[in-house]
């Protein structure tokens, strides 16, 4: 079970969190004309890298904040965690 350092609450066990998927996806702006392909990429296409990956986690049984977690998908090592809108190093 992962041990996730919530930037708001500190170290908490994984069972307090819900996984939220790829954190590198950016939603297209509202009212912007975009191609089917671009929209498709946003809705469906996700990278699934082996190694370092930036992920969203929702501290659902804690502070209810969405956070970003930089994690190695094969070793589960967590390098850093960020608040929702913190700049990513």
């Amino acid at each position, binding site marked *: *079970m992962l041990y996730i350092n919530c930037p708001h609450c500190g170290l908490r066990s994984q069972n307090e969190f*819900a996984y939220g998927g790829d954190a590198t996806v950016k939603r297209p702006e509202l009212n912007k004309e975009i191609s089917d392909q671009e929209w498709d990429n946003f809705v*469906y296409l996700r990278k699934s890298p082996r190694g370092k990956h930036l992920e969203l986690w*929702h501290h659902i049984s804690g502070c209810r*904040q969405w956070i970003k977690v930089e994690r190695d998908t094969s070793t589960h090592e967590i390098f850093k965690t960020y608040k*929702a809108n913190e700049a990513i190093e």
Partner: protein
Amino acid sequence: MSQDFRLDNVGMVNREKKISFKFNGKKYFGFEGDTIASALIANGVHLVGRSFKYHRPRGFFGVGVDEPYAILQLDRNNERDPNIRATEQEIFEGLEVKSVNCWPSVNFDIGAINNFLKMFFPAGFYYKTFMWPPSFWYKIYEPFIRMAAGFGEASIKHDKERYEHKYEYCDLLITGSGPSGLASAYAAAKNGARVILAEDKPRFGGSLLTSDVNIGNQTGVEWTEKIIAELKSMPNVTVKNRSQVFGYYDHNMLVMSERISDHLPKTQKYLPKQRLWYIRANEVLISSGSIERPLVFGNNDTPGVMLSSAAKEYMKVYGVLVGKKPLIFTNNDSGYETAIEFKKNGVNPIILDTRSNPSSDIITEAKNLNIEIKFSYVVVAAKGYKKVKSADIAKISDDKKELFNIENIKCDCICVSGFWTPSIHLASQSGNKSKFNEKIDAFVPDKSKQQENTIGSANGIFTLEETIKDAFDKGFDVSNKITEKNNKVSVPTVVEKKSTDHDKFWCVPLPKGKSYKRFLDFQNDVAVSDIELALREGFRSIEHVKRYTTLGMATDQGKTSNLNGLQLVSDIENKVVPQVGHTTFRPPYTPVSIGAIVGREVGKHSKPTRKSPMHSWHEKNNAVFVDAGVWLRPRYYKQGNEGLFEASKREAKNVRQNVGVCDVTTLGKIDVKGPDAAEFLNRVYTNAWLKLPVGKARYGVMLREDGIVMDDGTTTRISENHYHMTTTTAQAANVLSHLEYYLQLVWPELNVNVVSTTEQWAGAAIAGPNSRKLLMKLFPDLDVSNEGLPFMGYKEADLFGVPAKIYRISFSGELAYEINVESDNGYFMWEKIMEVGQEFQIQPYGTEALSTLRIEMGHVAGSELDGRTIPYDASLEGLVSKKKDFIGKRSLNRSAFTSTDREKLVGIVPIDKTTSIPEGSYIVKDPKAKLPNPKLGHVSASCWSVEYDNPFSLAIIKDGKNMIGQKLFAMSPLKNKTIPVEIVSSHYVDPEGKRVRS
């Protein structure tokens, strides 16, 4: 009580307390502190089971978790507990156990015929045999395999025992209380670390219980007792026996199962049977020790052949002799310790040592005790069927290939020692890649992967002096990283007998003309010949060899067999063991009962149960409840002999004719506040929200980004910057997460806060033509006329002194209101509504009537918004704004979503007006068409229309809008029904929606 094999005044069992137990129906006696194994051996019983494949007689092989043979079934309080290791289970008064995998009895087992048919059961037998014809699978092969598979029978009854979970945090977890575990725990505890020391067995000390050593001028046992007593007195130390750390997971999370009541006749009040500990440890020291390796020779599975260390432990710990004419077969010095122990207890052993001329302190001592030793000697084969009676022994050539002078000697047990295998399971589970240590012919942990270190014999250190010193150092080092107290205790002096190198020889060749089975894996009957066959058939990867032959599988997971298996594969392949590698170690290290894993999360405890504040009223009024997510909701209120159908019909009819009241507390409620709240709702919902006036509610639909409907509900503008959103009961939690996602990550610039208020409000829906009259009486000061409180209007008023919120919204399609009060006042509100409503023939209605009412009206719910429908499909396209952008809008432009013949919501009525249509039925054009019959759609919800007194269903069918009036068929292969139906409008009752606005 006479126990022929019990020694006087030796061992640690409590001779004062005699305990009786039953094995295969026969009564035996033992002492407190005995295991089933030690008590049975004391009584001269060695036949306890039958092997998995050939049903060969099985005895005891080990003395602990590695036991491959003595798997029994325990019957306790009329419940069955299979897969009990006799070497672990302590006896208690009234214990009843029986053998498994034998019929009719362990002494006479019909299945043993397999032993004579063994040429027909080679490796891969199942894969080769149960292939064809395919039609044999269900009726012949599968039942046969199921009958043959597994040891024992699990109970099918509910397990009444209590199991608990515990979460714990510590600086240092130490897994095993042998010399290294004790030393490191002591060093770390003295340095101020919070330590958990876990021991799998009832007694602490590990090898110190049986070895003849001296630590700090005390015997191993005395030193153990002193250290344990001191550790127990320290507030920063938790010491646990009967506790197996079986899994090493990510981020230093380890799981331990503590057997609290397994050794007691009855579960004690307030104590669970077992407790599962989830331990998050900053550091872990793995001191899990090592397990003796068997030597391989003919018929080496005969009862009476066992590990030499086990024989020693039975003597020293339990005061039990495993035999009176022992043969010790060894390739190292450990066998000598066992021989010396036999000799001390007045039994004359014979040692067969595969080495030609070894010398060490221990060998000298054995010689001085006049123990008969034969060097360069091996056991060729054990003789005897249900118990060893003699052994064929032989001198072996220096190249270990030729046997000479084969002779038969009498013996009643053969104690084997093929050196030691470190238990690297936990280190390996943590991700530590092991390395092969040539000196000990075994794998040891390599570089630490997580915060773990392996110490003692688990790390391949086999001298006590080095073990103790290393463990004191490691205990200090890892604790000091955390506590920084620099409090180092001195290392005691250690006296032990020096031993010499072991012999790498482990497998005795077959004599010419003999075809003895030489077993590698005792639990699964895997012999040398099976591995040879697998390799001949082309299996190369050790993982494939394992699965093909079942080497190292089953409950013991090859604790005694894996390394010999690897050695054999390497020998045949002309490789060295590290080239072959080992199979993956996965948790659990030992079997864990399912009950312990589940813990308290059984029955009603498997999820929280939420009840509305009016729950007790419903109970008192004969409500029959239904699970709605985690909520309990009244499904209907039973009157007299009514069933679900009659009651829900009565309740729904009363809503249509008079007035009904429904508990809607369970609806999700979310407060949306902030200056940008309107803008936010406008982006979340498909329809327009910017112009909703204060005091008005609006129905809204929200989508996922892929265009699929996520949820629906009404949201009311309470004040300028305050909205009250409602969600469906099922989606409440998801919707909140969804809103938080957009506010926190996508549009952080919006100044809006959301919070769940589901539990803050109790809700009652009042529906029916009499509802306004009722409302006038409930709120005499409020103008509830159609002008004063119009459809979708909102008012606040006092309900007999209690502040209430009144929303004029309707799910039933009738004139209806929803009243919310603070949860604490919910019961009061409900009683008042019932009391005042009496004169208007009010009746409470449950979810079944609620469904009937909404289905008749064509209002969609979860069965239509099933995660596959876009607004068009659910006939919600009128709510989709063309002007503004919102979540998921871009997806609605995709070609598949704009296609004109999409499935769409319709109503269906059976042509005979009497046959109910099962939910989930398919709609087809021709019920006799060739399969697969083209499906036009499916029935999503069915009810008995109280308005027209005939069945009515909602369905989502292809090109639905052009299908009205068509005659089709609803087919339910599940219910074996084919019903001719007519497609009608989904708005079956009051299609113009006059009633809600009346």
